């Protein structure tokens, strides 16, 4: 295979994952959190596909496709929740949605 080795792809994926994690942990808007979550999922996808190429087995790609489908479903529900929150007049602020406080 020409070009960078698999390791480089993995480093990109790791950096992307870390960025997404930071977004989830630091941002207060639920929309941004959802977007960051998508980043993390995509980083995982990249890792899967890289390893699929490494091992020459298509299982990784199949898994990545399934992840994409699940991510789509999750986004749909997540957005539905956010819209529901907005409709009820709740502030779209993750820190204020703390009813599960123990």
């Amino acid at each position, binding site marked *: 295979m020409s070009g960078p080795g698999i390791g480089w792809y993995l480093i990109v994926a790791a950096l992307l994952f870390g960025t997404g*994690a930071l977004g*989830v*942990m*630091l941002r*207060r808007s639920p929309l941004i*959190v959802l977007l960051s979550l998508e980043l993390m999922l995509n980083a995982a996808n990249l890792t899967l596909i890289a390893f699929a190429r490494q091992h020459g087995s298509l299982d990784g790609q199949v898994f990545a496709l399934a992840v994409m489908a699940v991510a789509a479903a999750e986004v749909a529900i997540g957005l539905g929740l956010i819209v529901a929150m907005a409709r009820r007049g709740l502030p779209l602020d*993750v*820190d204020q*949605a*703390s*009813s*599960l*406080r*123990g």
Partner: protein
Amino acid sequence: MVAGAWFCLLAPLAGALAITLAGERISRRQAGLVSTLTTFAAFGGALVAFVAMWAREGAEREQLSTAYTWLAAGDFEVGLQILVDPLSAVMMLVVSGVGGLIVWYSLGYMAGDDEERRYFAYMSLFVFSMLLLVEAGNLLLLLVGWGLVGLASYLLIGFWHHRPEAVAAAKKAFVMNAIGDATFALGLVLLVWQARTLELPAVLEEADGLSGTIVTLVALGLLGGALAKSAQLPLHTWLPDAMEGPTPVSALIHAATMVTAGVYLLVRAHPIFEAAPDVQHLAAGLGAATLLLAGLVALVQWDIKRVIAYSTMSQIGYMFLAAGIGAYGFAIFHLVTHAFFKALLFLAAGVVIHHLAGEQDIRRMGGLRAALPRTHVAFLVGTAALVGLPPLAGFWSKDAILASALASGGALGWTLFSAGLLGALLTGAYAFRLYYAVFRGPPAEVTPEPHGPEAAHEPAHGEGPLSMLVPVGALTVLSTLGGLLSVPGVWHPFTHWVSETAEALVEPSTGEDYLTSLAAVTLGLAGLWLARRAFVSGRQLVTSPGAWRALEHKLYFDELYDALFYRPAAALAGALRREVEEPVVERSLDELGAGTLELGGGVARVQSGLLRTYALAVALAVFVLVLVFVAVR
């Protein structure tokens, strides 16, 4: 024979269970009928056993029947076994017979009480327990019966549990009996250790082989139990208080049967006592002392039942005296006749109390001869039997005991004999004092409203229903004729029967018998004369105020025990509560709870409700997990 004995034992238990399980589905009267019928059925069983035994001879008359073995450890076995022999046959007949009459009497006496069913269930339980005690084939089972009768006594003394005096009296009886139970149990422990068996025929044979110290300790233990159960010095203070229970209870438990269990034990375990003669003589001495003490205190009591209670205490002193010198047959004989006339006295007193709507103070009684003619006759017969006037029952039995004391000779024999004679004088005095106060003289005013402890039932003015009259009548007949089972010089079927189990150590000669009787009857009549003279002149028998006060306080035994035992124990308990229980135990538990709460509160702060914190937690967890996976690889 054995089948009869088993039936006798189990019939009252079945009755008690039936009443308990039926609960409110049967009427109160039906509960009473169940109890009465099962008790009489038990008597039937006892009769069958007795007759079958009579048909046999010698050693065939004794049989040990084991239902199942509860505990077997090495060569030590103990379980549900009954011993059917002449002594237990006599006791079975007395317990179920007199018991049956008294339960029948209760049908009329307790009619109208709110908790009749509970009463009859307890009565059947008692009859079963007492039968278990007398039929027990090993000492452990005897102890079980011992404890059960104590329980039944507690339940029945405190039957009217809304009365604080009754509750206190029940507790007092139970605690004092517990002391006896403890010494009894300790004695049994020693026996198990040394003799390796508790089976009744066997363990008694072993008694000879035991060392002197051991057998003395065992005998002391058994004696302690007997003293408590039979209300003898020094564990006697509970019996007068036990009069808080209903009158039939006083008749059955605290006159005819339970309190005589101590005597039964002394006779049953006589080989042990014979191997420890000092203890046996101690028993006789305590019996004599109690006899006199109770007789003196009875002279100043105002409550009709208390007089009869002290009389019981005194008469049992006679039985202990007899057992202590080895006159086992006469001890049991007096037990039987005493059951007749004491039960009679109590039941007749019950009729009086009923008639006077609960009044028990003899100062407010009098002249009832006209109002209650049949009861008057019954009471008079009972009193005369108690005093030992011929030819009534008490005469034959009490004088036989005194004659045995005379026959045993020595310093002890003479002391006991004199005590017994003095006791006869006292008996005549207090018994007839009671009789005159209740039945003779001007009629006292009868207060119309019911009062006193026994006012709980429908006032039955007059002599009561048939269920009360017939038992009283039957007991009257028995008190009259019952003594004829042992006429000195003529025939001794009773003592021969008992001697098969317990060979008497002394046998008075016919001359001694008649001499003693003469002395005793004379003294009894002297007592009667003293009582009558005091009554006629309107004075009391005890005139010195110091003596009066001392006797009224029952020679200060209660106060002594209170100071010796109760106060220190209560103080100790209070101190322990203050110093140990509260600061250490309670506080530590509280702290444990508070600490857990604080810990929980601290941990709960992790639940901040912030999504981002949770995400952070997940990230950290992932970090750790990856570390673990990599390291494991």
